[in-house]
C-alpha cells in the first residue's frame, strides 16, 4: 500500500463522525435507488405477467387486419394445424384458441309468462376451449361461483341447451345466477339466425368491471357450431416460457404464420393502451430514480466539500512539505471511493432486507390502477441484479466525480495562505 493510500485509509478513521455522515448519505441514496428499481421491475413485470398469463397471452395470432378492425369473418382457419405449428417454436409453453362474437342475451323477468325473455342485454361472447384455456391461463381461477365449462351435447347439436359463464356484472344486469336459463340471440357467419337456450354454469370475475359487464363465455365447439365457424377461430393466444422470450418468440411465430395470411403480435402491440400507460409510468419512475440519485450525490458533494474546507490547514502542510497536488487529488478521491464501497456493502444488505419485505407483502393500491382496462390491486417488488449494479455504479461514479471538485480545490491550495488563515 502506497503512502497516499495509507493516508487515505487512515483519514477515514480520523474523523469518524464525518465519515459516518458521508457513508450514511451514500447508503441512503443506494437503498432508495435499489428499492425504487426493485419496485419498478417487480410491479411492472408482475403486471405484465399477471395480465398476459391470466388473460391475453404474451403473443397473439390473428387474421391480418383483425386487430384494427375485428370482424366475425376474419378468422384463423384450420386453427389446430396452425396451433400445432406454433407449438413447435422454441419458448412457446402452450396456446389457446378463442372466438369473439357479439350477441343479445335475454333472461326471464320474475313473474313473466313462459317463453318471454324481456330482460335483455348486449354481450360479447368469447368461445374458449375449456381444457386448453385452463392450461394456458388457469381460467377457472376467475370463476367466483359455479363451475368451469366442460364438453356437452351443445358442442354437436343446435337443439341442446348450452352452458354459459357470465361476467359478474353481466349476471347482475340480467338478474340471473348459477342454474338459471337464458336465451342467446345473434347472427351466424353464414347470415342465418343463431339462437340457443343456455344454462348459467358459472360467474366470472376478471377484476375488470368493464369486461365483466359485457362478457360471457361459451365452449369453443358450441360457438363454432352456433355461429357457423367450423374449424375457425379469431385468435390464437400463445403463452411463452418467459417474458424475456416474448420478442424472439413473436418473431419466430411470425415466420410460421406469415405465409398463412396471419399476423402475429406481442402484448406490446395488441395491448397498446396497457403498454403505453405502463411506459408512461415507467418514465415517471425513472425520473424519480434520477432525482433520488441526484439528491444522494448532492449530499456526498456537501460532506466531501465540508471535509476539504475543514482540512485546509492539513492540505497546506502537505503542500508545504512537498506533496504534489496530484497526490492530494488521488488521496481525496480514494477516500470517497472507499466510503462508497462501504456504503455499497451496507446498502446491499439493507436493500435486500427491504426488497424481501416488499416482494412478500407488496402494497395494496387504493384506488386500483387501471391500464387500458386491466386493473391491478397490488404491487410487489422483485429482486433483480439491476437493484444492485445500477445503484453501485451510480454511487461509485458519484463518489469519484463529486469528490474530484473539492479535491482539485484542495490540491491547488496556496500552502502559505492556508497555514496563515487557520
Amino acid at each position, binding site marked *: 500500500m502506497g503512502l497516499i493510500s495509507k493516508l487515505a485509509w487512515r483519514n477515514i478513521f480520523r474523523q469518524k463522525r464525518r465519515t459516518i455522515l458521508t457513508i450514511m448519505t451514500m447508503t441512503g441514496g443506494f437503498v432508495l435507488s435499489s428499492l425504487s428499481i426493485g419496485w419498478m421491475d417487480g410491479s411492472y413485470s408482475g403486471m405484465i405477467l399477471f395480465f398476459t398469463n391470466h388473460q391475453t397471452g404474451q403473443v397473439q395470432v390473428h387474421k391480418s387486419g383483425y386487430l384494427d378492425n375485428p370482424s366475425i*369473418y376474419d378468422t384463423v382457419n384450420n386453427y389446430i394445424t396452425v396451433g400445432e405449428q406454433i407449438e413447435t417454436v422454441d419458448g412457446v409453453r402452450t396456446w389457446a384458441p378463442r372466438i369473439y362474437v357479439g350477441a*343479445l342475451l*335475454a333472461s326471464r323477468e320474475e313473474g313473466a*309468462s313462459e*317463453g*318471454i*325473455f*324481456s*330482460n*335483455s*342485454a*348486449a354481450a360479447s361472447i368469447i368461445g374458449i376451449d375449456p381444457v386448453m384455456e385452463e392450461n394456458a391461463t388457469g381460467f377457472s381461477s376467475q370463476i367466483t361461483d359455479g363451475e368451469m365449462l366442460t364438453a356437452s351435447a351443445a358442442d354437436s347439436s*343446435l*337443439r341442446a341447451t348450452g352452458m354459459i359463464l357470465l361476467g359478474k356484472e353481466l349476471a347482475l344486469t340480467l338478474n340471473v345466477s348459477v342454474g338459471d336459463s337464458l*336465451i342467446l*340471440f345473434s*347472427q351466424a*357467419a*353464414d*347470415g*342465418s*339466425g343463431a*339462437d*340457443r*337456450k343456455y344454462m348459467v354454469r358459472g360467474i366470472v370475475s376478471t377484476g375488470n368491471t368493464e369486461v365483466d359487464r359485457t362478457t360471457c363465455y361459451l365452449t369453443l365447439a358450441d360457438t363454432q357450431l352456433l355461429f357457423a365457424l367450423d374449424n375457425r377461430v379469431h385468435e390464437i393466444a400463445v403463452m411463452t416460457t418467459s417474458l424475456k422470450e416474448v420478442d424472439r418468440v413473436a418473431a419466430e411465430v411470425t415466420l410460421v404464420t406469415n405465409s398463412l395470411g396471419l399476423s402475429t403480435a406481442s402484448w406490446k402491440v395488441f395491448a397498446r393502451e396497457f403498454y403505453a400507460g405502463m411506459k408512461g409510468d415507467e418514465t415517471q419512475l425513472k425520473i424519480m430514480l434520477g432525482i433520488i440519485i441526484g439528491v444522494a450525490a448532492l449530499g456526498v458533494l456537501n460532506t466531501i466539500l465540508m471535509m476539504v474546507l475543514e482540512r485546509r490547514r492539513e492540505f497546506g502542510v502537505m503542500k508545504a512539505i512537498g506533496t504534489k497536488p496530484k497526490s492530494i487529488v488521488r488521496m481525496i478521491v480514494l477516500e470517497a471511493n472507499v466510503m462508497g464501497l462501504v456504503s455499497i456493502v451496507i446498502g446491499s444488505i439493507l436493500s435486500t432486507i427491504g426488497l424481501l419485505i416488499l416482494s412478500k407483502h407488496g402494497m395494496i393500491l387504493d384506488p386500483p390502477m387501471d391500464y387500458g382496462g386491466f386493473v391491478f390491486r397490488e404491487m410487489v417488488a422483485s429482486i433483480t441484479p439491476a437493484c444492485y449494479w445500477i445503484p453501485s455504479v451510480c454511487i461509485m461514479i458519484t463518489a469519484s466525480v463529486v469528490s474530484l471538485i473539492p479535491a482539485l480545490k484542495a490540491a491547488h491550495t496556496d500552502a502559505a495562505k492556508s497555514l496563515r488563515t487557520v
Partner: protein
Amino acid sequence: MCLSIMATVVVPSVMVLLPLTRELTQDLDQLYRSDNSYSEMSMHIITEHWERTLTMEIWSEGRDRTFIKVLSPARQAGSATLRIGSEMWNYLPNTNSTVRIPTSMMTGSWMGSDITNNDIVKEITYTDDYTAEYIFDPDSRGASSDGIYLLKLTPKPSTAVVWSYIICGVSVNPVLPVWEKYYDQHDNLIKTVTFSDVQTMGGRTIPTVMQVIPANKPDQSTTITWSNTTFDQGVSEDIFSLDNLQSGGN
C-alpha cells in the same frame, strides 16, 4: 355570379309549378301508410360473405304496431318480430322464446340486412320530423327534364337519427320517391335507397322494389320486393300481441 342570377330567375318560376314541400312530404309519408295494411314481400340480402332471400308477411296498424313473420328460408322460418310503439320483440322458433330487443341494440341490423331495428321501430315522418326544401343543383340531372326534383330533408332538432340530412329524388306526377341519399355531418354519403318497379298494388301506385346500399360497402345490398299489399282491409287486433308472437303468429 351568373349562376346566382339564373337561380333568382329560374327558381321562382319553377316554384310556381312545384307543389309545396309540405304537400310533397305528406304524399311521400302516406305512400305506404294506412290505418292498417297487410303485405307479402321478399328481402334479398347480398353481403361480401353470404347471400340469401327471406320471404315474409307483414301486418301493420296505424303508426305504432307492426308484426312481421318470416316464411323462408327453412332455418329462419317461423321467426317473427313484433313492434308496439318503440318496443321491439323477436320470436325465436328454435328455442320457442320471445326476446325483447334492448335500446342498445336498436342500431343493430335487422335479420342481417342493411335495415336497422331502428328503421323498423322509429315511426318517423318527413312532414313532422324533417324540414324540407327544394334544392336546385345545376350539376344534377334532376330538375324538371326527367321529372325528378331534389328535396333536402333536414331532421328537426328533436328527431333522433344518425344522419345529418337526406337528399331525395322525387317524381312529382304522381308523387313517388325515386331515390334517397343519406349523409352525415361531414357530407359523406351513408347509404343510398332506390325505389323502382312502380306498380298498382292494393289500389295504390307504389314502387314495389326498394334497395338499400350502404356507402361503405358498395357490394352489399338489401332489396325488398313487395309481391302483394292490401291497404285498409282490416287487421285483427290479436295479431299485435306477445301471445300471438310467442305462438309464432300461427
